[in-house]
């Protein structure tokens, strides 16, 4: 599977994501520049974390107008895989590829820490390597991660199995205390109805090496790599 990591002005997890995919997992990975129109034949577009355009106006609000994002939108509509991490998730919401919006964290502070998330749907292309109900330990780092959607949208997400991750404690319990940023029903990640676009606030690219405290982020990337679309292609060791 060939991955493309988008670089916006103000992206700051682009190199980390590239390192995780290419340096650690050995995947063929390229950077995609926000001013370009060429997706370079990738199978999965990753919108990395950071502060695209300074997150001025509203997180992700300006990035969605980048020339490249018009291509990403078409790519997603044709079934291409898109993974939005943190700021990337916020951009997907602004772009309308995923429903809902982000509010400030409930404590009105930036939060950076390891959290536990429960896999609510292990049938997606992003989670098939994990088990339903499995608890993953992956860090978050955001100011606006308090997910919100209107009741009708929430019911639809719940009904379709589009809620992919929920914040929980280390035993998998989801409650007020574990819901670190105050998200609606503890939502940490959602997928579109077609199942090819995932947005998540936790940073899987920060959890692929045991030296840094967790390797649970590999479940997300490995699921993609092992997907039918991914298996057909050769992976390349970093040069």
């Amino acid at each position, binding site marked *: 599977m060939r991955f493309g990591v988008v670089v916006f*002005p103000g992206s*700051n997890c682009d190199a980390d994501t590239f390192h995780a995919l290419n340096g650690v997992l050995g995947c063929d990975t390229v950077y995609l520049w926000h001013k370009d129109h060429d997706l370079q034949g990738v199978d999965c577009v990753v919108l990395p974390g950071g*502060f695209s355009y*300074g997150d001025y106006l509203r997180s992700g609000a300006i990035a969605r107008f980048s020339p490249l994002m018009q291509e990403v939108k078409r790519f997603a509509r044709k079934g291409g895989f898109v993974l939005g991490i943190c700021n990337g998730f916020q951009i997907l919401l602004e772009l309308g590829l995923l429903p809902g919006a982000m509010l400030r964290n409930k*404590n009105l502070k930036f939060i*950076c820490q390891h959290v536990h998330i429960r896999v609510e749907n292990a049938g997606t292309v992003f989670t098939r390597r994990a088990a339903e109900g499995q608890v993953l330990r992956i860090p978050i780092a955001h100011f606006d991660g308090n997910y919100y959607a209107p009741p009708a949208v929430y019911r639809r997400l719940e009904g379709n199995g589009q809620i992919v991750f929920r914040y929980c404690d280390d035993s998998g319990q989801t409650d007020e205390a574990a819901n670190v940023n105050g998200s609606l029903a503890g939502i940490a990640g959602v997928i579109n109805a077609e199942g090819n676009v995932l947005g998540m606030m936790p940073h899987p690219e*920060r959890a692929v090496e045991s030296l840094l405290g967790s390797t649970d982020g590999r479940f997300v990337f490995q699921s993609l790599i092992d997907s039918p679309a991914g298996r057909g292609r050769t992976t390349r060791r970093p040069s």
Partner: protein
Amino acid sequence: MIDSGLLERHNLTADEYALIVDLIGREPNLTELGIFSVMWSEHCGYKSSKVHLKKLPTRGPRVIQGPGENAGVLDIGGGLAVVFKIESHNHPSYIEPYQGAATGVGGILRDIFTMGARPVAVMDSLRFGPLDNPANRSIMEGVVSGIAGYGNAFGVPTVGGETAFHPCYALNPLVNVFCLGLAEKDGIFYAKAGRPGNAVLYVGARTGRDGIHGATMASAEFGNDIEHKRPNVQVGDPFKEKLLLEACLEVMSRNLIVGIQDMGAAGLTCSTTEIAAKSGLGIGIDLDRVPQREAGMTPYEIMLSESQERMLIVAEPDKVEAVRDVFAKWDLEAPVIGKVEAGGRLKVRDHGEEVIDIPVDAVVNLCPVYRRPAKAPSPETRKAQRMIPKRPPLKNFGEALLTLLSSPALADKSWIFRQYDHMVQTNTVFPPGADAAVIRIKGSRRALAMTLDGNAFHAFQDPKTGGRAAVAEACRNLACVGARPIGVTNCLNFGNPEKPEIMWQFEQVVKGMAEACRAFGIPVTGGNVSFYNDTEGASVHPTPVVGVVGLIEDVRKIVRPGFEKPGDVVVLLGANANEPGAAAYLRILHGLDGGRPPRMNLKTEKAVQDLCLDTAEAGWLRSAHDISEGGLAVSLAECCLLGSRGRGCDVQLQDRLPEDVLLFGETHSRIVVTVKKENLGRLKKAARKAGVPVTAIGRVGGKTLIIRHLGSELLRIEVEDIRKHWSRAIPDLFRIS
């Protein structure tokens, strides 16, 4: 017309003015006066500190660049170099905590990437007034959000730091920011002008009226009129800085530029004159071409503005277009505003008219240097400072420990570091809170460790010992994670140097630091002096903050602070002593500030650290944690708290010392380590050889911290009970109710 009132507003003395007239051969105009005023300020000119700073050792086999550039540079092998420095942003952070702290981070980041290094870690040393006062809480909240707001958006991890509290910082908080960058050893850039005819480019943000006279402000005492100083504080834009970083590193890696200098304190003035003076050349610029944020700015305002996120670049004429293309790619302006000239003069034109024509050498190199009078306190004061304070006996040691761990000084600081993205760049091996921060170097087995340290309470009682201890303790922190120190940077925060007693403190602290650096064989590669930390006549405690960088050859051998395996033996490296003076427990439990601080025997200290390092590298240590503020009991409690499973321990002490001193005294040169039982013999043998006293004092196990002394039990507390007190203390103070 320049009169005494105008000179006073520019913080220049009559003698200094006479020297300016003499150097330029005429009376300066107002803009020129402004230029001398900032460049000859204490902040830029180091005029009170220079003679003393010369005592610090600055050479060593790893030193590529010592003091005098934007940051120090050390060779770490493998074709790589570390670039690091610490800076204060104290005054702005009091006036406007968020922007003051944010631009402090922005400034130090630019110091690092100006040299061609990518910033990979930030740490902060903070001092506030006591948190029971809402005004102090508000300052702390603003400072922490400011650091977070800038560093998080820029994408540099804030990996550690320290925070302390005392009433002397209530009206003068300290915000010292350290940054470390990684660079190719052969890719370091300097403030160079090359040769006459080279183009001078202005890159980054536009110039506005913010921050005019920031450096002069940082060189004077504050009165109660700080509201009026608010326009002197700059406003930060971390997004612009991130673009500037990427663009600068790109033109550097493509070898498109000759030299570069950031526009920090004194902005355009400092960057133009320094880049010219360092190459013995002159520079001519045209103010019409300087991008401006607002209309109608005077030459005085443009030259002295401290608007953030700007750089001055010198490039050969045929490379200018390529440089501009790179900046355009990152949506940044990069106009040519002038050129390098022969003749050594700064010539500034505005609308075709020459408004400045002065020799750069005079501005940059001929700032008067003072050996200000220093006066030791009277013998009676000295004696009083050394008295062992009389204190009531402690009735309940367990309660005393919980009180200490719930005081903001010793409590869990995760309320602070949770607001910092401490993981971005995916190199952070430890979350903040360990003895030192550790970041791995991608593509190698090696790692860098770094720490900030400085105990102002010790330095206040005995400045020289405090200076020695600051360096020694920072090195001890590194030893605990298994890192060998390679270099030092320092930020020296003091009161008004025109007061002889303050100057004495400064002189003593620097002497002490110099001794310690020599004992550890580590060079000082740069730093910062912040004088005039006085508000309404009261000075802060002498607060030397030392940043030490260390190298770990094999990241798999790093040592963590927490207890992990039941049955492991708890060993004390070093010896307990009867030294209660200046300890945190005296302040927190008894409200006593005084007493002679613990001695610092550098030979003993070095021996203890070397033993810790040797045994860490041999792979014998399961954990290591130093004993500092709060003493042995606090250190043991932290070992329980910082382990991944909250293990307890049962410790027996045999020293014939007063119990309170044994538990909470801050005697130096002590480290708590744990080893597997099988390794105890080896450790003891190595210790004998090194001449270091070591004592097996207990075992790891259970869920309770138990400390016994000569057969009687001093305290017994559940680790989770300790954790509640320790972790809730700071959040409870900031709870929104």
